[in-house]
């Protein structure tokens, strides 16, 4: 019964942390890779939930394909999230980070 507890706790923390990092990271490439990690965690969740079909799909589509098309998009556009110079200047004045 209990052998699953620790892996699940790790998985929960990993997935949520990756999701949060995907949202806050300023570098889009990192954000995309952590979205892939979220998918990977999800795929393991599906495996634990006795859904090998869905786990396989999520691994193939969520982890591989989605990440790839995101990366292609980033290569075509830009890697840095923040483009709003005015706002970052205000942040500096307020003594925000950097």
């Amino acid at each position: 019964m209990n052998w699953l507890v620790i892996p699940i706790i790790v998985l929960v923390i990993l997935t949520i942390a990756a999701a949060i990092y995907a949202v806050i990271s300023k570098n889009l490439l990192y954000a995309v890779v952590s979205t892939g990690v979220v998918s990977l965690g999800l795929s393991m969740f599906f495996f634990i939930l006795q859904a090998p079909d869905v786990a396989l799909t999520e691994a193939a589509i969520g982890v591989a394909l989605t990440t790839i098309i995101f990366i292609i998009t980033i290569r075509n556009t830009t890697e840095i999230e923040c483009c709003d110079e005015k706002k970052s200047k205000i942040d500096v004045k307020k003594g925000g980070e950097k």
Partner: protein
Amino acid sequence: MMKRFFIFLILAIVGYYIVDVVSQIPFGENRVNVGDYYLDKSPSELKVSNTVTAIVVNYRGFDTLGEVTVLFLAATGLASIMFRRKRKGEKDIRAKKASSRIIQIGSQILFPIIILLGAYVFIHGHLSPGGGFQGGVIIATASLLMLISYRKFKVNHSTISWIESIAGIVFVLLGVTGLILGKTFLENFLPTGELNNLLSGGIIGIIYVAVGFKVAAELTGLIDTLLLNNRPEANKEK
């Protein structure tokens, strides 16, 4: 500032209700629902051991037809959105520089293996986990590997659209055949065979193979469209 406040307000409301509702749904309980019927009938009548496949291809096969159409439309729409007129003398350039020799050889070795794996996955969709979608995606990954390691590897769009169209038409026509034979759309009209046998499940296996080809072709086309656009000078277009 105001906007941020509103966002948190909305999230708080949505979050509160979702948490409240979801916590009332008992976890791990065996509810009485349509799933039991499928678990009961799928091995005994359809002779399909993977119940999920039976649902995806047969009981809710219409959904799958729609799903394949969604992918088809996404590939079409993406090509329409990304379409650009070619300037004079312009050629399709993909990656800036060719990959290293090691990657090229590696992907050459891996390519057939991945294709085989994909084919295995979608041929055995009714027996083991996996099926047309998963297998199709795996094959698309193989061609992606070739695309990024070889600069000159060209996807033949004509072949792709033939595969795509034929696979799609096979799917719909198998459905219509049921209709012509006096049954219903997408109904099984072939003998179902033995459980856990490769040739079982009637049209389910055939449909899943068609789905596999279609998904593979669509995704390969989709990735190629995205990659063809992948060049810095294209960004400067106004």
